[in-house]
């Protein structure tokens, strides 16, 4: 008797706890009852397909990060060779991971080798014919650079999304090479702004202008070539009203400061009251900037954003910590730009692989359909069980309902997200879950047919079928695990629902159902002769 009492207490406690965590918040939210925050925090969240929002998948072009590294190394070598007085006819990038040096005279080979020893150990040096050398990035460095680029890109996107103020965004790495980033923004409907902000490289560079602006590239070149250590950068079109073609600037390749030296950026107005972005440099950046501006008073400073000169103001004096980017910006562009600058630049360009927008009305329709299907399924199964198993059917129905309550409660506890396929998993759990009861009840019938007592029939059926159930549930869990591994977002929701449903079903179909039978039997003090099954 005491054994049974403890079992009953367990069943009731489990019911109450899971109902409080899983079911009560939903019901309360539906009828607008206020509830403590520790409960609402745990409430089952709706997935993007039910709530509406934006779903984006981007690929990080990790080649970019490699190219930047190789280019940087190549430029450093160029500087070293210049100071060492080694003449070469060409220094060029072969592919994102390699660059080559051409035309080293035999008598300077030793000097070149000395200079080249300063090239970072990340590169492998191979000598070719006619004074040619190729520097190739080591494979392990390539791998770690690629990984770093994706991680940095993810972190940058996270910062940007947080700045956007989206509630409960989800940002994750995925894909075969793990180079894709999944971004889910529930409730966001302005896809274009979100996409623009996420994808902007946001690379800010301040460089000293050597010559320009000029309407054609040719006038900036010396003997038809861009001078060493310089580069030509296009402008965005100059001042508003000036509708002429693109203007070009010849600037020093080495940037005075970059976006990495920024401490903050905020929208402001320039001297003509047009929207602009003001920025403050970090102390280290300010020192660098002060030195460069101090040495170049009277020259122009190009403010380059993502490879385009936004403006090129004259340096009137030594500037240290504060600066301003002005150009032909709208108020909204200024807002977005300061957000992007604050969150840092992306290490590589991003391309969109997938875009999905779900309107809130479609989500609401899906919820309504899903709930309707669940209720109809539940009622059909309850009716069938009561019809076929009579009084014992009640037992199965209690176990089934408790299974669903535990499922909801565990999902809420695990912080699971309810998706449309998740609802399907819910419906399926009812169908497959009730199978355990059927298995046990059919066994009890067989045992009763074999002329055994009710009590013995129930006991032996439960203990025998438990092993079968264990096998079937583990097999089902194996396929659910691979499903979880395969899927993203909604499919994972489905796999998770199925998994939790299977585990809680093992508890309700055996422990709860058996306890209920024992409860019924305990009411009869004499031997029970019949069982309504």
């Amino acid at each position: 008797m005491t054994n049974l009492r403890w079992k009953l207490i367990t069943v009731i406690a489990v019911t109450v706890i899971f109902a409080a965590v899983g079911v009560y918040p939903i019901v309360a939210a539906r009828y607008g009852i206020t509830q403590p925050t520790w409960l609402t925090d745990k409430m089952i969240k709706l997935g993007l397909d039910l709530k509406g929002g934006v779903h984006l998948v981007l690929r990080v072009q990790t080649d970019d990060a490699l190219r930047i590294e190789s280019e940087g190394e190549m430029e450093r070598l160029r500087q070293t060779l210049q100071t060492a007085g080694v003449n070469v006819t060409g220094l060029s990038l072969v592919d994102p991971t390699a660059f080559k040096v051409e035309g080293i005279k035999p008598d300077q080979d030793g000097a070149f080798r000395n200079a080249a020893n300063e090239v970072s150990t990340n590169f492998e040096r191979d000598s070719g014919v006619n004074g040619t050398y190729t520097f190739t990035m080591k494979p392990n460095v390539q791998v770690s650079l690629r990984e770093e680029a994706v991680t940095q890109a993810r972190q940058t996107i996270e910062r940007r999304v947080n700045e956007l103020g989206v509630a409960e965004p989800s940002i994750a790495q995925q894909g075969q090479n793990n180079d894709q980033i999944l971004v889910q923004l529930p409730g966001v409907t302005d896809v274009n702004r979100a996409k623009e902000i996420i994808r902007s490289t946001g690379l800010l560079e301040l460089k000293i202008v050597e010559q320009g602006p000029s309407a054609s590239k040719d006038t900036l070149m010396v003997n038809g070539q861009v001078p060493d250590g310089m580069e030509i950068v296009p402008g965005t079109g100059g001042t508003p009203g000036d509708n002429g073609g693109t203007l070009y600037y010849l600037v020093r390749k080495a940037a005075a400061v970059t976006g990495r030296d920024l401490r903050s950026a905020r929208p402001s107005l320039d001297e003509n009251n047009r929207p602009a972005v003001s920025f403050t440099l970090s102390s280290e950046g300010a020192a660098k900037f002060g030195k460069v501006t101090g040495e170049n008073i009277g020259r122009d400073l190009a403010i380059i954003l993502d490879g385009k000169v936004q403006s090129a103001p004259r340096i009137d004096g030594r500037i240290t910590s504060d600066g301003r980017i002005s150009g032909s910006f709208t108020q909204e562009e200024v807002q977005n730009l300061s957000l992007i600058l604050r969150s840092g630049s992306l290490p590589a360009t991003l391309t969109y692989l997938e875009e999905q927008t779900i309107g809130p009305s479609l989500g609401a329709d899906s919820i309504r359909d899903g709930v309707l299907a669940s209720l109809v399924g539940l009622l059909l199964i309850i009716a069938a069980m009561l019809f076929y198993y009579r009084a014992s059917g009640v037992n199965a129905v209690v176990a089934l309902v408790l299974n669903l309550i535990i499922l909801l409660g565990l999902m809420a506890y695990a912080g699971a997200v309810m998706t449309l396929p998740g609802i399907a998993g819910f419906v399926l759990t009812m169908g497959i879950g009730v199978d355990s009861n059927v298995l046990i009840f059919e066994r009890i019938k067989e045992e009763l047919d074999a002329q055994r007592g009710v009590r013995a029939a129930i006991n032996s059926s439960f203990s025998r079928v438990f092993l079968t159930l264990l096998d079937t549930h583990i097999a089902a869990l194996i396929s659910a695990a691979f499903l979880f591994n395969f899927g993203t977002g909604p499919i994972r929701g489905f796999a998770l629902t199925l998994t939790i449903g299977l585990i809680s079903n093992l508890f309700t179909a055996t422990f709860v159902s058996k306890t209920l039978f024992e409860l019924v039997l305990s009411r009869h003090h004499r031997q029970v002769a019949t069982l309504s099954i």
Partner: protein
Amino acid sequence: MHIFKNADYNFLRWRWHAVGLSWAVIIAGLVVMYTKGIPRSIEFAGGTSTVIQFEKPVTIEQVRSALDKSFKESVIQSFGNTSQNQVLIRVPQSGAETGDALSQTKNAITTSLQQANLGKFDVVRTQIVSPTVGRELTTKGTWATVLSLAGILLYIAFRYQMSFGVGAVVATIHDLLVTLAFLAFFRYELSLNVIAAILTVTGYSTNDTIVIFDRVRENLRGMRRDGLNHVINVSINQTLGRTVLTAGLTLLSVIALFLFGGEVLRGFAFTMIVGVITGTYSSVFVAAAIVTFWRGSGPTKAAAHAPATALPAGGQQQPSRAAQQPTRPVQQPTRKQKPQRKAKAS
């Protein structure tokens, strides 16, 4: 109440007919897949798909003529409840992979619709997928299926024995092929949801098979003088009520999903309906037949040196769990000492 009172059907007698029927369905499915292709959803094929809700009712023809100029191979169909005036438009190309070009096609669709004067409309859902995504999904989906089958094979081989594992896995592969065949017959798209349903069918079908195998294992202990065919037949008959009832109840829930679950889940529900039916059929007709092909169908008397703990048909003497322990070694010898093959249909 009993669905089957003292059922005594000779299921194994029908196994050759079953094999014929299964092959017929699978081959027909493969032919349809080969000639007409498998329709693939946007997640797999790439492209642009939008759901547009019009303020006023529009016909599919109106939408089609509005789009015909710019989009040749578009699929246009009504979506969801007809009273909501929702139309699904799907265009194969997704624009270039780079940059913002991904949404070019979508913008072109809305512009064409605006020019056609079909009244106000709302874009309820957009889905744009570049073609590279699909390839990755196909590989991942295939691996998930293969690995989950391998996992199930290993588990059953460990808990029962190899022939049972092979039986269960062959039956499951059979179900996957039949499900794919029906998807091809009814031209349902292979989408992420459908793949999820297919993987669920894998679990369901194994589940069903295990219940029968479990009973075969139990009966093998009590019916050592009977042929394997007979033992299997008896086991299938004993569990027949449960098999049919479970299939029926699961069908009830997936049919509810098919009828009321909305447009998005229809493919999922259809796959599950086919999967549950074929899963039940294969547990009865395919899985056990494979075991007899694998092991031969003679008497199982070699299993004799196990303690006689169980009697057929629920006549178990000791229901305690300790009695279940010596289960696995029981069948070991039969594998080594293959009994002579009897007539195909015993």
